């Protein structure tokens, strides 16, 4: 065997260095990823260990008692469902319609760019500013008072950018060639959207809605001044009523009430997270179902 062939099977110094670098970088990125997961695991573990003893059937079905130091979370649970539902009803049609316009109709001109800029900026506005806006606009100016309606509209405005951006991305993931083919068959833009674009982007649009739900459930500041209250002995009857809410209730039992059993705030926090997971898994299941019938 000639030397050349023998050398062909031997790693040159450069090869060895490349291989070493490859290992180093892989380890680096793996470490970063693990560091990322640690807080999630710790939070979930801590909440479960400390909060689980507080959970019982009565915890979910009873009202708080004795200045929130005893009893359950039922009114807050129901209140949050109200807030999320009304916020979705307000923001999803608006956000999806705006995204369809921006993605399918709008020409790339100054106005469109300004709208895009506005949406990005809206996403960057701190939630406490949204809260004050909601107080000024919905509670005082439109005279909704502190109510589910005012709080939900505030939440809706806050989460609109999420819906718009994610819907637009979902729409734009539908290949342009489908639109061209459809248009050249003589279809109008709306026919194209209805028959081809929407059916193929619906699962992506739902992903945006899932994100919105998670965020809406957890937000505290925007509902503090606009509709959520410390304690209500009864459930809201209409959107004009005030309500308790999970996020604000957690804030209250964790910081505002003295002499509270330690397990209770953790129980509320754990319930809040379970609620988000539950709402998400419903949408995820729906999305998986839709994706199964997806057509390309």
């Amino acid at each position, binding site marked *: 065997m000639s030397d050349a062939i023998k050398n062909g099977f031997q790693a040159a110094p450069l090869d060895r260095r490349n291989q070493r670098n490859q290992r180093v970088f892989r380890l680096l990125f793996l470490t970063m990823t693990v560091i990322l997961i640690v807080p999630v695991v710790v939070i979930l573990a801590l909440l479960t260990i400390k909060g689980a003893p507080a959970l019982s059937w009565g915890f979910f079905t009873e009202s708080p008692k004795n200045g929130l130091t005893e009893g359950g979370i039922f009114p807050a649970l129901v209140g949050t469902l109200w807030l999320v539902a009304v916020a979705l009803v307000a923001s999803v049609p608006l956000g999806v319609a705006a995204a369809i316009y921006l993605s399918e109709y709008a020409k*790339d001109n100054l106005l469109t760019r300004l709208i895009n800029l506005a949406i990005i900026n809206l996403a960057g506005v701190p939630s406490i500013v949204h809260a004050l806006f909601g107080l000024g606009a919905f509670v005082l100016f439109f005279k909704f008072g502190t109510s589910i309606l005012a709080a939900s509209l505030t939440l809706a405005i806050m989460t609109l950018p999420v819906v718009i951006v994610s819907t637009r991305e979902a729409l734009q993931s539908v290949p342009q*060639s489908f639109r*061209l*083919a459809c248009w050249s*068959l003589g279809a109008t833009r709306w026919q194209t959207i209805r028959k081809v674009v929407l059916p193929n982007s619906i699962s992506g649009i739902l992903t945006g809605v899932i994100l919105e739900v998670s965020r809406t459930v957890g937000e505290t500041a925007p509902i503090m001044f606009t509709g959520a209250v410390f304690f209500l002995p009864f459930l809201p009857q209409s959107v004009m009523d005030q309500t308790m809410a999970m996020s604000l209730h957690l804030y209250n039992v964790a910081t505002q009430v003295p002499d509270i059993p330690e397990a209770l705030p953790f129980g509320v926090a754990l319930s809040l997270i379970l609620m988000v997971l539950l709402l998400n898994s419903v949408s995820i299941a729906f999305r998986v179902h839709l994706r199964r019938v997806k057509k390309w």
Partner: protein
Amino acid sequence: MVSKDRIKLEVKDLEIRYGSHVALQGATLNIRENEIFGIIGPANSGKTSFLRAINRMDEMTSGMRVKGTLEFNGKDVSQWRNLYALRSRIGVVFPLPVGLPMSVYDNVAFAAKLRGVKGKANLDEVVERCLTRAALWDEVKDRLDSLGSLLSGGQQQRLTIARALSQDPELLLLDEFSIAVDPVTTMRIEEVLKDLKKEMTIVLVTNLVQQARRLADRTALFLAGEVVEVGKTKRLFGGAATDQRTTDYIEGRFG
């Protein structure tokens, strides 16, 4: 003889720009009814832009600007009030088959449904007729409900031809249809096209010079945004081209 033929598409001094880039300039030619009009030329010479201008896709393409006249049936396409009426008379086949994300049946029935054709029997008739004419019926008649995208590449391209035919177009635009199709299927489609020209006008953009020779009645050479020469295919390929560049391109000396 020539003057008796009716003109389907009259193009005068057409200019197409994308921003400051000129894709086509000073294009003047006419396309007659029931002919196959071949357009050859290397990449980036304005062939596809020309097709896009015919069915007013410029409205859907950002930055595309069209100047000059382009008369379809004697009426400038920019004057058509109803864009969708114009597009529904013009069938388009793209270089890569674009199966819409729906079943084989729905791909072909789509245009008919858009035009308001109702009733399963009527739609069935359209689907069978168009698939048969696109030489695909025998291969797919038992799997009309499966997804269009599950067909092979060559079948998908014939599906898009069937779809274009379902519009009953007066004008069929083919943009390098054989780029992703095997030679056998290409030959089958070419036979279909020869048959189709009895009923419609066909514009065939191709980068296969020999395909233009086989099919086109007349051929135009586009080169870097300029229409170099338009003439009978027999004359151009018979060594009687007026422009030296045409002879060079046909004989494969460049491009």
